[in-house]
């Protein structure tokens, strides 16, 4: 059933051969095809622009008031590319190797290789668009090492790489809107996918300003709707990030892969009150100079600067002498949790650890530290009112990225013909753990360089869908979506949507967060359906459907999270191994490190929807590792 459609041939030639083998749509015919692209982040904007340049008619949808505000805008650190400009031995093969290994061997080799191969074109494209990457005095592009990589392959634009890349793609999209080939639909939320004869042919969405339902038909649908990190309520994701588009497609037959693969970022500003709405990421680069510690004495409430050196526990440096504070994200996160769980956490809540720059400041001087991290320190101070030049920062891990997503084949098409999924929304090339600066790379590779080819192959073979929004399938989907909204408004209970979201988030964080175990997951699986039921009985969605109504918007998203969360926990329960960001307490080495079980779990877990509350059906895509050999990660 699950055919990944990986082309034959040596890995380095697969993509080139495949490009040749794929069918083409002749230029005159492209004009006759209509493509819906949902999402205007890096993946969606780059896809929409490129498809329009090729001659397809594109309809581009996003939730925000402008495509430029998609969540991709917030990425800070940078984007990887195997340019080897620093002459330090990088290559397409090494980036491929690092990505497979970093993902803890839970990704498809052929896809990852193609990603590494295309990474170099992305930089060229972005430079040509006017993306102001950091440069050296000679006028050439600057690179840095990021997220513990041993080569410097990360390109960046100050601390605003995502913003600059997105504005580049947005510019390209605006250029196409001006030609009349792309129609923009901002402030639209996709609420359903329309499937006719097992082919995705359109979407139902709500106009967020007027509240009106709209149906749109097309010959192919591309989802680039981002990740589902907000199932945890608090995350580093933008507030409007959601699982709705992907989940609705799942309910219509698209299979969901590896939902339990979520990434927790170790350096975020800790939670400081229950009014908290968002967790702010502090760049990973801080760990290059900051030292992570907790007091040796449990519950030590002294101000940090009064705690003498020998009473500080630099736990990462002690446990991982060779990597120290630069261990990968998942390892750093888990250790922070461990010490806080044991009662050594700091700050008012006791759920934080110190990230201390005292030694760096003494060694290099405040000016040097300011030059490197000034912006981040200012941001920290703005939020916490504490000056990190004087007192150590407090940090704690937070949900950041989701590797799981809708299953796609090598052509980025889901199991539902006509439905393509790009960017963070697909179950991606990052396996069980994503390396820093690789999400931006993947989003743009998908949008600029993969989908323009593969969608042509699909359209050339499948031909026009002939879909008509007056068709009964459209009407039925529209009515269903409208009925759901009416139902939400008619509950008229006592609890707010935010309260349900918070409760769901806490449950997920507790049982399906940094460390998971069977008992906890079972508890969550018992609790989530109850919460879902309570939601539909007691939620209070104020306002009306025929107007701009943010409560209603969020209610719909939370309702979908309440269904999705169950799948995520089930997947986590099913995967009784630890790998990458998925840490099962039952599966660890003697030193407490994640232990994979390649005999039983060297596959992608691909779920088929069978109804709310029904047990979904599990399909498996076995992963073969012919080039990067299965090894256990070690950072000692």
């Amino acid at each position, binding site marked *: 059933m699950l055919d990944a459609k990986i082309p034959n041939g040596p890995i380095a030639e697969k993509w080139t051969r495949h490009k040749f083998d794929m069918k083409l749509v002749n230029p005159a015919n492209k004009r006759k095809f209509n493509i819906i692209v949902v999402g205007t982040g890096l993946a969606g904007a780059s896809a929409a622009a490129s498809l329009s340049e090729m001659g397809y008619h594109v309809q581009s949808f996003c939730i925000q008031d*402008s495509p430029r505000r998609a969540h991709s805008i917030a990425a800070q650190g940078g984007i990887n590319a195997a340019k080897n400009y620093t002459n330090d031995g990088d290559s397409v093969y090494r980036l491929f190797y690092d990505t497979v290994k970093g993902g803890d061997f839970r990704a498809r080799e052929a896809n990852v290789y193609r990603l590494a191969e295309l990474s170099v074109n992305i930089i060229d494209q972005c430079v040509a668009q006017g993306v102001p990457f950091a440069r050296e005095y000679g006028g050439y592009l600057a690179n840095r090492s990021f997220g513990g990589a041993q080569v410097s392959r990360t390109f960046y*634009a100050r601390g605003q790489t995502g913003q600059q890349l997105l504005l580049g793609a947005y510019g390209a999209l605006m250029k196409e809107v001006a030609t009349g080939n792309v129609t923009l639909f901002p402030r639209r939320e996709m609420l359903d996918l329309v499937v006719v004869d097992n082919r995705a042919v359109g979407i139902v969405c709500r106009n967020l300003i007027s509240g009106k339902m709209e149906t749109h038909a097309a010959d192919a649908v591309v989802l680039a709707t981002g990740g589902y990190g907000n199932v945890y309520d608090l995350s580093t994701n*933008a*507030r409007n990030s959601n699982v709705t588009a992907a989940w609705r497609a799942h309910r219509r037959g698209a299979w969901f892969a590896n939902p339990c693969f979520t990434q927790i970022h170790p350096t975020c500003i800790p939670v400081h009150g229950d009014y908290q709405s*968002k967790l702010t990421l502090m760049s990973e680069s801080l760990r290059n100079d900051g030292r992570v510690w907790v007091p040796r004495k449990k519950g030590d409430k002294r101000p940090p600067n009064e705690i003498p050196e020998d009473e500080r526990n630099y736990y990462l440096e002690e446990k991982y002498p060779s990597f120290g504070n630069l261990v990968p994200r998942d390892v750093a996160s888990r250790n922070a949790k461990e010490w806080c769980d044991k009662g050594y956490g700091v700050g008012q809540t006791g759920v934080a650890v110190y990230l201390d720059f005292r030694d760096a400041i003494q060694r290099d001087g405040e000016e040097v530290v300011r030059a490197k991290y000034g912006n981040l320190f200012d941001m920290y101070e703005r939020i916490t009112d504490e000056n990190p030049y004087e007192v150590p920062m407090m940090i704690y891990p937070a949900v950041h990225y989701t590797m799981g997503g809708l299953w796609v084949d090598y052509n980025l098409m889901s199991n539902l013909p006509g439905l393509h999924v790009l960017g963070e929304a697909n179950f991606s090339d990052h396996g069980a753990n994503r390396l820093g600066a690789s999400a931006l790379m993947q989003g743009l590779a998908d949008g600029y360089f993969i989908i323009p080819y593969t969608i042509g192959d699909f359209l050339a073979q499948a031909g026009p869908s002939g879909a008509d929004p007056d068709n009964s399938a459209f009407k039925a989907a529209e009515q269903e979506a409208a009925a759901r909204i009416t139902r939400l408004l008619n509950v008229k209970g006592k609890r707010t949507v935010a309260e349900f979201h918070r409760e769901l988030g806490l449950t997920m964080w507790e049982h399906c967060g940094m460390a998971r175990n069977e008992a906890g997951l079972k508890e969550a699986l018992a609790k989530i359906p109850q919460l879902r039921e309570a939601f539909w009985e007691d939620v209070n969605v104020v306002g009306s459907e025929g107007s701009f109504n943010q409560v209603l918007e969020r209610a719909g998203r939370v309702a979908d999270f309440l269904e999705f969360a169950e799948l995520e926990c089930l997947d986590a329960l099913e995967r009784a191994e630890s790998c990458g960001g998925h840490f099962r307490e039952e599966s660890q080495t003697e030193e407490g490190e994640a232990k994979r079980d390649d005999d039983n779990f060297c596959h992608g877990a691909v779920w088929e929807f069978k109804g709310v509350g029904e047990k979904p059906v599990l399909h498996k895509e076995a992963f073969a590792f012919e080039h990067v050999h299965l090894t256990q990660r070690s950072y000692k």
Partner: protein
Amino acid sequence: MAEKTIDLTLKVWRQESPDVEGHFDTFPAKGISTDMSFLEMLDVINNQLEKEGKEPIAFDHDCREGICGMCGSVVNGHAHGPQEATTLCQLHMRKFHTGQTIVIEPFRADAFPIVKDLVIDRGAFDRIIQAGGHITVRTGQAPEAHSVPVPKKKADTAMDSAACIGCGACVAACPNASASLFTAAKISQLCHLPQGHPERNRRVIAMVQQMDKEGFGSCSKRYECEAVCPKEIKVENITTMNREYLRALASSGE
């Protein structure tokens, strides 16, 4: 994070839809933690309103870390509130004191119609970018990135301009509701890069024409835009835009 609470009075602009009259509603905001962000404070008020079955205050937001440009209101006469170089979502309640009355209004400009309460329609900005705020290069046309070196200083200047988040505070603060700073920042970014040169003349004319067409005012050099800009985009960008404009006028045709 020395937590403290304050009591405030909020006067918030309420407007059902673009073409109905708006008015101010007054809400007490009691026990507000000074560690809250401004938007979290609004969340708390909204949660209370929802509990009472009333419609919460509509306000735009997304990233809540000062980069998406979605948030923004005029707080006691200041676009994005009183803290310099800070978006509304990054403003914290410790900047206010007990007993204070906070007047919250939408960004007002005829080119930014009010959608609801504090939510506005900034589509005009997209149309200015459509007119020319980009480089016409197709996917796949790009040469190797290192084939054109860009002096560091130029790249840095371009980045300074490119930092604009398109929030519209410049328009909100300008007595003429001018979009000059926004438009100029994009023009300036692209004219500092060699990649932007082939289209520079066409770009500046088209973007300025669109800016006028959208109903924004012109620049009277009051510099209020610069003062409220959360990303500290400088008026020098407007100088650059005007220079580009002169240059475009001087060069015949392209």
